[in-house]
Each structure stands twice: as structure tokens, then as C-alpha cells.
């Protein structure tokens, strides 16, 4: 019997998800021995033609990491869809747009301008920007088209499974690979993560939530035993899916929301906004005047960047409204 084919492909990603694969340690060797890797450019010297040459629908499982920020990512996603029986949106970028998805506060043109013209180190007096097609000495050079709106993988192709996390927790990677090897994959739509919020698995003690000041991360060294949110630090735990076993919170770092929204939530940011606003000035909410409330609320310096750090493309609005 031939080994099941597996592909690991990269869209717009930092490749951190690849590193998390290597963290599996000896399991990687077992997995590598029992599957046929048809495409994994970070792992070995694969070319796109290797993936193009396998028959359509023959790849048992494809892990797609990264968001869709340009035409190249989109083309690859569609190729992967054609070749694969099951596609996993692997990591927060593929699931929700991730950190690259924050580009949805701007447009492709403005981002290019910042990167190539406006930064102090740019020496570009003519204001030249990369072009999808340029002619140099009679030859054509092509670049992918950068999109104005960054998308998650399932906004481009249908996806069977989701494995959120930045990077995804090892236990779920192992679970998915073992399931694929034994041919016992869960029903489509399955999310490799917990069905409950991060607070559910956080070991800190929760006493009384009453925020009278919001502390930025550099301003205090938080108590390592008590709920971070209760200490005034913006922790995305209440609005974020668990399953990661809270490694950040265990190390005194607030949750940033990489596991995405909880299963019932329509919008991760709005859920967090609701949870946070509810506990602001809780002890004196009947008497607090607008004059005192507004400065307290303004201590949340960047609501959009905080509440949608990993999920702007999958939020209700998907992006900031472009200025006309």
C-alpha cells in the first residue's frame, strides 16, 4: 500500500508554523517515515512543479499556513484545493488572517508608499513602487499583485479543518497527523482546539473584576498568581478559544487572542470589548460620570489593534473602511 501524500504549503506567513512542526521532536521522524511529502519548500528543495505534477485530489492532507495577501498566495491556494482531499487552515494567519491581516487597516497602495517611499531609510525621490509587470532591457519581469484586503484561507477556497494558534499547539498538530495517517479524520468543519475559552484553562486565581485603571504591559510587573485582567492588563482570554493550555499567561504575558474567537462568537473583538467594558469601574458604575468614564475608556489605547490582532479579516467588518 502506498503512503498517504502530505503537502505543507506557505502563503503569506513568517514560517513560524513550520518551526512548530519541528518541535514535535521524534514524532516528526515517525511521521516523515509513514507519509510521502509531495511539497514542503521550507523542509527540502521542492519546486512548485512537484506539486503541480501530482494527480488532482491525490494529496490526503495539506497544511496551508499563512494569509492570502497577493495573487501568488491565491493561485497557490487554488492549486492546493485541486490537488488535495483535505485542506487544513494551519495557524492563525490561514484561519483568521493573523498578523498580516492587520494590513486591512490600510490599502495596498498606502502600504507600498510607506515601505518604499516614506520611511527614513528610503532613497526613492521619484516615488517608484513595485509594479506587477515591468520591462527591463526588453525583458518582462512579473511580481504578484498585492491585494487591498487581506483574506483568510477559507475566504478564498473551501477548507476542511482549522488549526488556530500562533503557532498551533503541538498536541493538535500531532492529533491531526495521527488522524490523517490512520484515515480517521474528523468531520469537515472541525476546529483543532478547545470548545471553551482560554479563561477555562487558565490557572490564575480570579477574585473580583473591577478595573479602575488600564495598565499597559510595560508599566507594571504583574502578580504571577492573579488574573491579569483584574490587574488592569488587557488579556484577551475571555474572548479567545482555549486549547493552547495558556503558555503565555503562565509566563506572565497576557493573551493576545491568537486562537481566535470562541465557537459561538460572531466577532472576537466585539466579544472582548463587551467583556472589558462590563468590568470597567464596576464598583462605582452607578455614580460614574461621563467625565470620569471617557478618560478611563481612552486608556484602551488601540481597541482595533488589541481586539482584532489576529482576526481582522474574519471580523464582522473585515477591514477598515478605505478613505474616499
Amino acid at each position, binding site marked *: 500500500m502506498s503512503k498517504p501524500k502530505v503537502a505543507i504549503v506557505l502563503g503569506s506567513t513568517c514560517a513560524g508554523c513550520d518551526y512548530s512542526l519541528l518541535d514535535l521532536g521524534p514524532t516528526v521522524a515517525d511521521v516523515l517515515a509513514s507519509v510521502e511529502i509531495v511539497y514542503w519548500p521550507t523542509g527540502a528543495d521542492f519546486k512548485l512543479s512537484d506539486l503541480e505534477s501530482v494527480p488532482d485530489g491525490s494529496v490526503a492532507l495539506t497544511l496551508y499556513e499563512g494569509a492570502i495577501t497577493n495573487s501568488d498566495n491565491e493561485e497557490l491556494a487554488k492549486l492546493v484545493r485541486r490537488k488535495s482531499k483535505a485542506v487544513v487552515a494551519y495557524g492563525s494567519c490561514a484561519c483568521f488572517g493573523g498578523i498580516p491581516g492587520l494590513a486591512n487597516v490600510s490599502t495596498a*497602495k498606502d502600504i507600498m508608499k510607506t515601505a518604499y517611499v516614506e520611511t527614513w531609510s528610503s532613497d526613492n525621490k521619484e516615488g517608484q513602487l513595485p509594479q506587477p509587470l515591468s520591462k527591463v532591457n526588453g525583458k518582462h519581469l512579473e511580481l504578484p499583485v498585492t491585494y487591498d484586503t487581506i483574506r483568510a484561507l477559507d475566504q478564498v477556497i473551501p477548507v476542511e479543518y482549522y488549526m488556530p494558534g500562533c503557532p498551533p499547539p503541538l498536541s493538535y498538530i500531532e492529533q491531526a497527523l495521527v488522524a490523517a495517517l490512520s484515515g480517521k479524520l474528523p468531520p469537515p468543519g472541525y476546529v483543532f482546539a478547545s470548545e471553551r475559552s482560554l479563561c477555562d484553562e487558565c490557572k490564575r486565581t480570579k477574585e473580583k473584576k473591577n478595573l479602575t485603571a488600564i495598565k499597559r504591559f510595560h508599566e507594571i510587573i504583574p502578580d504571577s498568581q492573579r488574573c491579569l485582567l483584574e490587574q488592569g492588563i488587557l488579556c484577551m482570554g475571555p474572548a479567545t478559544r482555549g486549547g493552547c493550555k495558556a503558555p503565555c499567561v503562565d509566563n506572565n504575558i497576557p493573551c493576545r487572542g491568537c486562537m481566535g474567537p470562541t465557537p459561538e462568537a460572531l466577532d472576537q473583538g466585539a*466579544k472582548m470589548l463587551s467583556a472589558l467594558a462590563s468590568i470597567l469601574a464596576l464598583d462605582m458604575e452607578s455614580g460614574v460620570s461621563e467625565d470620569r468614564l471617557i478618560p478611563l475608556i481612552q486608556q484602551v489605547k488601540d481597541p482595533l489593534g488589541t481586539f482584532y490582532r489576529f482576526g481582522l479579516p474574519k471580523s464582522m467588518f473585515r477591514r477598515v473602511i478605505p478613505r474616499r
Partner: protein
Amino acid sequence: MASSFEPRIVVFACNWCSYAGMDLAGTSRMLYPANLRVVRLMCSGRLEPEHILYAFKAGADGVLVTGCHPGDCHYISGNYKTRKRIRLLEQLLAQFGLEKERLRLEWISASEGELFTRIAKEFIEKIRSLGPSPLKQEGLFAPLITVAAAGGGGE
């Protein structure tokens, strides 16, 4: 055409004060323009910020949130929670590029039918002057998994 624009406004009203106030406006035969779509909730504190975002996404040009006056909440503190959520949501909507005037919070008691009609007229005129919601104009919510013409941008 600005003149043919009729604002669509979603109103969230609590069962105990604001909805009763609107009922009073109705039974007293007070008139106000028919641009409102009223959603009754048991308490303004039931209103999730998600619902407001959803209303805008679904095509609302404005959202009016109403509840009991401070101190009058049937559930003691629901309207206080709402006030804090709305104030924080205003900051978020500003970052999303939506005019802050499109979201309004008002306290309306069961006896304030007249106040309600006044606020309704005022709000409708405000939204009319702002024009259609930019979320509708930009076509931001077009279906995504048929992406032939998606993208653009670049240079």
C-alpha cells in the same frame, strides 16, 4: 442621489422603559418618520456590541440604542453596562472609519413618548445628512468564495 436616500435605522429598545415609551408614542398617535426598525430586548444590557456591528453589516445606516434612565434599570445595572460598552464601541467604530454619529445612545422612560419621537426625528435627519453608510457603498461584504474579480490594489 442624496434626495432619494431614505435612512434605515435599527433601534434597540429595552422592554421595561424604552419600548413602553415607544408604545406610548404609538397609542398617543404621535407621528415620526417610518425609517426605524425596532428590536425589543428585555434589557439594554442584553445588547451585545456584536449585534450593533451586525446591524451595520446588514445595511443599517444608523443604530439607536435606548434604555432606562440611570437608576431605573429593571435589572439594576444593565444600562450602566450598556453605557460603558457603547462608549468603548464608539472608539472602535472611529478606528474602523465609521462616523461616530451613526451610533447613538439615549435613555427613554415609559412616559417619554414625546421625547422618543423628538429623538427619532432628530436622529433620522442626522443620518439623512450623513448619507448612506460607507459600509454599503464600498461593497465590503460581497460574498468571498467566488473570487474571480477580487483584489485590485497593487500599483
